[in-house]
């Protein structure tokens, strides 16, 4: 009995050590195939990366590893879906991280709830301190209920960004979608925005926020914890009619700095048309 108790305690301790000290730093690149005729035409041959939920406290080994992977991947597009800082944390390290992100065509992002925890400092993502002038600290283009259109050899790509928690922002996007035939990628922090699109909306939503739960828990427990986003959209690809969404596990952690069975990920998308052969 004593040996059983000691063995169990040892296993639990090892699991916690792994969860706190090892897995949060085991960043992996997840390749995700998206079947979409328009996006495959527009983004053919392009390297598209998606990062989210970095929750940066300082430029540590995880942040350096992410930057190293991004640099080695030589992306054409990098999309960011928010939460660059810890809740009520400092912003300098996150801004430094963003300043080191590079992509051939560009880097686009939206802000998450943690970024707005100090709403005054959240302005630093886009502006010089105490000024309405655009920041010169980094070249990320933050989309706050707005969109930009990019020309590629395959056609035009619309990149839209939703302002976190803003109904006005969703109304804007609805209006924009109703008058567009362009391939559209929507950046959103919360995956719950997926519900706000209709099945016939031809959009691909990139979202984060859930961290994949950080540990595997059954839906019922997430429901008890009042985490609706984890119950419904914990991680992975969701398709409903023509609308699609990928919810990334993100890179960092919040609350407990723990990950078990939910490695930090950088998502690399491969877009295929309906007739493309799958290797």
């Amino acid at each position: 009995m004593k040996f059983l108790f000691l063995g169990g305690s040892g296993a639990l301790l090892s699991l916690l050590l792994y969860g706190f000290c090892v897995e949060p730093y085991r960043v992996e690149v997840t390749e995700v195939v998206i079947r979409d005729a328009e996006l495959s035409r527009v983004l053919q041959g392009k390297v598209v990366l998606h990062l989210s939920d970095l929750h940066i406290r300082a430029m540590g080994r995880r942040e350096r590893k992410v930057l190293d992977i991004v640099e080695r991947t030589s992306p054409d597009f990098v999309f960011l879906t928010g939460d660059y800082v810890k809740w009520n944390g400092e912003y300098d390290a996150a801004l430094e991280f963003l300043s080191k992100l590079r992509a051939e065509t560009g880097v686009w992002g939206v802000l998450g709830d943690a970024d707005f925890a100090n709403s005054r400092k959240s302005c630093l993502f886009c502006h010089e301190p105490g000024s309405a002038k655009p920041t010169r600290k980094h070249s990320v283009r933050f989309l706050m209920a707005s969109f930009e259109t990019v020309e590629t050899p395959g056609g035009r790509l619309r990149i839209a960004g939703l302002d976190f928690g803003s109904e006005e922002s969703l109304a804007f996007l609805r209006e924009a979608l109703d008058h567009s035939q362009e391939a559209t990628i929507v950046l959103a922090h919360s995956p719950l925005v997926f519900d706000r699109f209709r099945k016939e909306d031809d959009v691909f939503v990139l979202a984060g926020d859930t961290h994949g739960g950080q540990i595997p828990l059954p839906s019922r427990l997430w429901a008890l914890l009042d985490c609706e986003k984890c119950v419904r959209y914990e991680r992975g690809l969701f398709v409903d009619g023509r609308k699609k969404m990928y919810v990334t596990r993100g890179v960092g952690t919040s609350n407990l700095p723990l990950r078990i069975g939910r490695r930090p990920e950088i998502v690399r998308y491969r877009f295929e048309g309906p007739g493309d052969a799958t290797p």
Partner: protein
Amino acid sequence: MLLLPGFFMAAGCRVSSEPGVVLLDFESDGELDRLHWKCGTLFSMDAGHAVCGEGALKMELYPSSYPGMSFVPQERDWSSCGKFCFDAVNPSPKALRLTVRIDDLRESPDYPDRYNQSFSLDAGRSTVCVFTEELVTSGTGRRLDLEGIQRVFVFAAGLEERRTVYLDCFRLE
């Protein structure tokens, strides 16, 4: 004197017997952290347009849908106060139309279920007040729960040119 439903200039205020409560007086830079910062508005402290004390809020509004300020009052219970007031200075000869919105519901309520009132700020200094007994929602006609005021907004709607306004001395009287 400009008289709007729910609003009047200070000269016509009924003085409450209750002692006043200062909600925001912009006497220190830290008060800017109590505001909700969002795109389209830039806040800074200003010493040249203070109405009470030494400082005021300089609010630069940029063309956008709803530029302006909002804050969560530290004093949530307004039931013993007769009116909510603040001072404003419009440095432009052109009038500026602003809206005051007051929520008594925690989750951001839709237009019909909150207090909304627009008013025009003429050039120079004005004091804007609203009687607490006139705090009624716009669509449902419900009286606000004066013991649980959640958030106060002052903003411009559909601004098409850059404007500046100075605000000071948000208070209950």
